[in-house]
C-alpha cells in the first residue's frame, strides 16, 4: 500500500475522478457505456427465457391462453402502473442529481424505493394466491381442465422463473437505491458527480422495460376466451 498522501494525491481535481480519466465528463461517458454493455448481457439473459416462452406458446397456445386467464389482470395492470411511476420518480431523481437539488434527489430516490417495494408486495400477494390455487409447478400442481394440466404447468413454470428473475432484479435495484440514498445524503453525489445516480437509473429503467414485455405476454393471452367457470 502506498502512503495515504501518495495514494490520495488528487492534485486538486475532483476526489471522485479516477486517475485514468482526464475529466469527470470522460469518466461519465465511460461509466454510462459500461452500464449499457452490462444491460446488453441482461437483454440476452432474459432473452433466453423469452425464447423458451415463445416456443412453448407456439406449441401449446390453448393451455397458455387458459393459464394466462388464471393470472389476476388487475394486479398485473396495477403493478405495471406502479413500475412506470417508479421510472418517472427515478428519472426525476436523475434530474435532481444533475441540477444539484439534494433534498429533491433524496425524496425521489425514496419514492422510487417505495414504489419498488409496493411492486414486490403485490407480487407476494399474487404468488400466495398461486400456492392457494395449486398453480405452483410441482407435486401439488393442479389445473382445470385436466386435459391441459401438463402444458399449463409449463406456462406456470415460465411464469415463476420469468417474474421471479425479474423480482430478484427489483430486489437488487432496491439495494442499489439504498446505496445511492446513502451517497446522496452524505454529499458524495453532487451536480458535478451525478454519474452514479444516472447509471443506477439505467438499471432501474431496464428492469421496468422487462416488465413492460412480461405483463402483456403473461397476463393478457386468453382474455377474449369465453368466461371459464370452475
Amino acid at each position, binding site marked *: 500500500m502506498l502512503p495515504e498522501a501518495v495514494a490520495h494525491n488528487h492534485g486538486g481535481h475532483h476526489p471522485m475522478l479516477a486517475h485514468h480519466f482526464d475529466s469527470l465528463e470522460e469518466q461519465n461517458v465511460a461509466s454510462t*457505456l459500461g452500464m449499457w454493455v452490462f444491460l446488453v448481457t441482461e437483454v440476452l439473459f432474459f*432473452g433466453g427465457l423469452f425464447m423458451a416462452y415463445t416456443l412453448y406458446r407456439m406449441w401449446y397456445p390453448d393451455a397458455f391462453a387458459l393459464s394466462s386467464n388464471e393470472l389476476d389482470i388487475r394486479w398485473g*395492470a396495477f403493478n405495471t402502473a406502479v413500475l412506470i411511476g417508479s421510472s*418517472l420518480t427515478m*428519472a426525476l431523481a436523475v434530474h435532481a442529481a*444533475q441540477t444539484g437539488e439534494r433534498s429533491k434527489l433524496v425524496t425521489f430516490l425514496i419514492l422510487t424505493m417505495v414504489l419498488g417495494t409496493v411492486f414486490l408486495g403485490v407480487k407476494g400477494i399474487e404468488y400466495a394466491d398461486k400456492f392457494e390455487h395449486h398453480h405452483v409447478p410441482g407435486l401439488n400442481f393442479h389445473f382445470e381442465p385436466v386435459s391441459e394440466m401438463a402444458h399449463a404447468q409449463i406456462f406456470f413454470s415460465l411464469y415463476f422463473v420469468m417474474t421471479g428473475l425479474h423480482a430478484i432484479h427489483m430486489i437488487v435495484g432496491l439495494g442499489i437505491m439504498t446505496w445511492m440514498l446513502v451517497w446522496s445524503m452524505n454529499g458524495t453525489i453532487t451536480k*458535478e458527480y451525478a454519474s452514479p445516480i444516472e447509471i443506477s*437509473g439505467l438499471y432501474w429503467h*431496464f428492469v421496468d422495460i422487462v416488465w413492460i414485455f412480461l*405483463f402483456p405476454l403473461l397476463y393478457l393471452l386468453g382474455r377474449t376466451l369465453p368466461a371459464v367457470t370452475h
Partner: protein
Amino acid sequence: MSEHIVPKSTYYAIFGALMVGTALTVGAAFVDLGPLNTIVALSIAITKASLVVLFFMHVKYSPKLTWLVVIGSVFWLLLLLGITLGDYLTRGMRTFG
C-alpha cells in the same frame, strides 16, 4: 457536468404516454383480433420500451457509441430468437429423410 439535462416536462409527457400505452394494451387484449392480438400487444410493448430507452434512459441525447451498443442488444436478441426459431420451425421439413 456537460451532459444533456432532460427537462422535467419531457419526463412527465413520457410517463403519460406509457400510462396510455398500458391502458391501450389492456383494452386491446379484450378485443378478439385473432392472431393480430399478439402483434398489437408486442407493438405497444416495443413502443413503450423505445420511449423508456430514448427519454428515461437518455439514449436520444447520447453519443453514437451508446446507440451502437443499444442497437447491438436488439441485434443479438434477434439472432438468439431468429436462429433458434429457424431450427424449431423447420424441423418438419425433412430434406434428407
